């Protein structure tokens, strides 16, 4: 279970995130709504190690982040974007998806029997599997500048899933998408929700209504769960 305790971030004595507390169980989805500048993105950035908290504690899970503008690596194909970090970190995917484990391990074994010579750690096989899962199996060899906004986002989701995070965070997942693509994205998130804890920061009330197990409002850095969301 993820636990965030008294988390604060201040810039020159102004609290961007002000004593935030919450817990999140495996498979739960927390949707955070709030105006621009309310501290939502700063909270996600702290959870993902992009900002150092001024005080407070985050415990009980690993995180992945799908950025608002995706931040795909333009020189790599969709498949290359998924494989880059696991290859550099030598993650082992040969047992991922079996009953033994659901997240990749760090490999210490370069040439285990039965592994393919071109894909000894099963990284490419797993990356292709994830691209299929987000409906982009046929786009594996396309570069980001050849993909639409919705497709880029799906690659970004698959890339974040590659490392098997306990909690997957989304920063405004529908803000850059048209209504049609937004409903496709909500469908993907609904599928994902069955097996993945998520924190979604959004302005979109429909997304909130569709996906939230827990809803919270962020205002002036404070997160409140007892505010009624229309």
């Amino acid at each position: 279970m993820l636990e965030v305790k008294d988390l604060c971030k201040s810039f020159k004595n102004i609290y961007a995130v002000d004593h935030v507390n919450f817990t999140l169980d495996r498979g739960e989805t927390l949707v955070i709504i709030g105006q621009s500048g309310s501290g939502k993105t700063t909270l996600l950035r702290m959870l993902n190690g992009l900002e150092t908290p001024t005080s407070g504690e985050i415990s009980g899970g690993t995180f992945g982040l799908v950025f608002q503008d995706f931040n795909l690596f333009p020189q790599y194909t969709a498949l290359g974007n998924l494989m880059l970090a696991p290859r550099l970190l030598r993650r082992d995917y040969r047992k991922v998806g079996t009953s033994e484990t659901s997240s990749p391990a760090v490999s210490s074994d370069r040439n285990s029997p039965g592994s393919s010579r071109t894909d000894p750690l099963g990284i490419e096989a797993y990356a292709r599997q994830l691209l299929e899962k987000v409906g982009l199996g046929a786009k594996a060899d396309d570069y980001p500048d050849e993909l639409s906004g919705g497709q880029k986002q799906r690659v970004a989701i698959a890339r974040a899933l590659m490392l098997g995070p306990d909690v997957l965070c989304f920063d405004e997942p529908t803000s850059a998408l048209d209504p049609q693509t937004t409903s496709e994205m909500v469908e993907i998130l609904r599928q994902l929700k069955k097996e993945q804890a998520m924190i979604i920061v959004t302005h979109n009330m429909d997304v909130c209504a569709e996906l939230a197990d827990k809803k919270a409002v962020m205002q002036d850095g404070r997160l409140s769960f007892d505010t009624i969301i229309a």
Partner: protein
Amino acid sequence: MLVKVTLELLAGFRYNLIVFFATLVFAIPLGMVITFGEMSPIRPIRAFFRLAVWLIRGMPLMLQLFIVLYVPGLVFGMPFRQRLTAALIAFSVNYAAYFAEIYRGAIESIPPGQWEAGKVLGLSRSKVFFHIILFQVVRRSLPALGNEFITLVKDTSLARVIAVPEMLMKATEFTMKGLIWPLFYSGLFYLVATAALEVLFKRLERRFAHG
């Protein structure tokens, strides 16, 4: 006569090519070192490299050729005997300063989200730089580097001011013997070299299309 002039000019052009390629070999990596110095979080290091770039870019290359050739002899009593080596040092340092500014501009133009995406994926800063950022820096530097390479081809003729016997010096020797056309003919060699560079950079830009 055309053959004799061509062979003479080619003998001189060999020096232009030596200066050109050796400058690239030294200036490309040295420029990267200067860039890191200019972007260092340590203020004295940053100030030192910025001052050096200002000094190098603020003075004519011709003057720098004289400085490298004569200052060691005047200050340390160790005059430079190898004029070609002096030219290579002056060219390399001068072009490294320009390359450094090109690299710095390219690095600063990379969206911070690229660094952050690498970090969120658990990559160290050096892995992010070498596997994600560097390619994009090269991609963004290519048009400006293409310009510098073409300028360098033409600048190699400056080596004659410290008596490196490059092509334009050879052409001028013909002029002193009353033959003016080799001077204009030498322009053809520069045109061929710059045309080859333009083709090369067009290909490189296609190779680096995504990024």
